């Protein structure tokens, strides 16, 4: 195996030893900024490439990097382990709505689900650190709005929100737009069709 650069070794050890995922800026800081975050990122990518196909992989989640086992080995490793937190159906839906629509208020979540959201549901998601308040919506009542966190991306193995399954298709289909907006669009289309027929 070719000689590994000292800085690459150091960064590899840092990420390996860290008890939480690190981002390039944190790592650069540990080098007293002798390296730029950009350089750190390039080195992280080199490390990830070196581990590709092995039993350990270096992955990026929301800009933060950590080592983990490859998913295809899950069956060998799952033994004697507790299942991760089992989400209720309501919690899973609320989480999905926040992830795909963020930031959203509770009222907006309820508009999609057609049912009131119990306080407990948001609490469970906040306790798991998958969602966090993201300020207030500047509308009457100034409702709190929520967004997903880096821990959410990490847990679900997403490099970024763009990786949310099917998000592009949903957006393209207008399924992430509010009903009012979709309704107006549908009516416009209908009018166009009618106009076309009449012409």
């Amino acid at each position, binding site marked *: 195996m070719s000689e590994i650069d000292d800085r690459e070794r150091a960064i590899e050890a*840092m990420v*390996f*030893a*860290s*008890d939480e995922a690190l981002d390039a800026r944190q790592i650069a800081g*540990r080098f007293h900024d002798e390296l730029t975050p950009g350089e750190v990122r390039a080195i992280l990518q080199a490390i990830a490439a070196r581990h590709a196909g092995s039993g350990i992989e270096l992955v990026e989640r929301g800009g933060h990097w*950590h*080592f*983990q*086992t*490859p*998913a295809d080995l*899950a069956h060998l*490793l*799952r033994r004697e*382990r*507790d*299942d*991760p937190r*089992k*989400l*209720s*159906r*309501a919690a*899973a*839906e609320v*989480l*999905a*709505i926040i*992830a*795909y629509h963020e930031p959203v208020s509770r009222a907006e979540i309820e508009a*999609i*689900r*057609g*049912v*009131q959201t119990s306080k407990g549901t948001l609490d469970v998601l906040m306790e798991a650190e998958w969602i966090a308040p993201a300020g207030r919506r500047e509308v009457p009542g100034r409702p709190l709005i929520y967004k997903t966190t880096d821990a959410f991306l*990490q*847990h*679900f*193995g*997403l490099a970024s929100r763009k990786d*949310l*399954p*099917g*998000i592009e298709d*949903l957006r393209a*289909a207008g*399924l*992430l737009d509010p*009903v009012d907006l*979709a*309704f107006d669009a*549908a*009516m416009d289309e209908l009018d166009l069709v009618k106009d076309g027929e009449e012409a």
Partner: protein
Amino acid sequence: MEELPLEYEVVPAAAEREDALQLNLESWEGPLDLLLTLARSQKVDLRQISILALVEQYLTFIAEMRAKLEVAADYLVMAAWLAYLKSALLLPKDPTEDPSPDELALRLQLRLQRLAAMREAAARLLARDRIGRDVFLRPNPEGLQDVKVRRWDASLYDLLAAYGQVKLRTEPVVHMVARRPVVTLDAALTHLQRMLGVQLDWAELSAFLPPDYQGPLRRSAIASSFVAALELARQGRVELRQEAAFEPLYLKASQG
């Protein structure tokens, strides 16, 4: 859209269950969810779904439930609204009606599509490779440590000042109270009264002071004489005059 296995499988629609008695509304997350479940049982794309058929299914279901169970209010509100929608859809179209039943049906359809999209998104999210289930982290990482290094700070001045204080504290302390020359109030009173007999016109306070009083003694004499002048004025034996604040103070013996 592709059907994905849900981690939480929904309760089958009432028609598919023999023991409909055991069904309860808690199986659904509200009326919209029940509608969606019924819609899925039609096994067609939500965009092509017959809202009228769906509404009928819902109303039948709620009617059955009502006979057997206490039906939650929001299901009944939905039922009432859907019954209205159903009648509107069946009646001949009234162009003046706003919103039109078709528009209401479209809205319902859009809502169901959105809920279905999120339901599916949730399932796909939960099916991802999740930490602790599919991928694993290092259980006991060494951790990165931040070690604080204490750095003590002091200047040479601090050091010398501290030494000065030590020296001072431990040196034998002798208090010397210097005796200072003063003119007492009594002496000033006596002197002033005597001088007022001589001086008949207005005169400045300093003119009443003995000319040989110099330095601290003179300052003391001014102070005492001033107080003495106030005392004599109070007794009505002297008049005081001053042009303005901090201007010279003039005295004159009272007439009569």
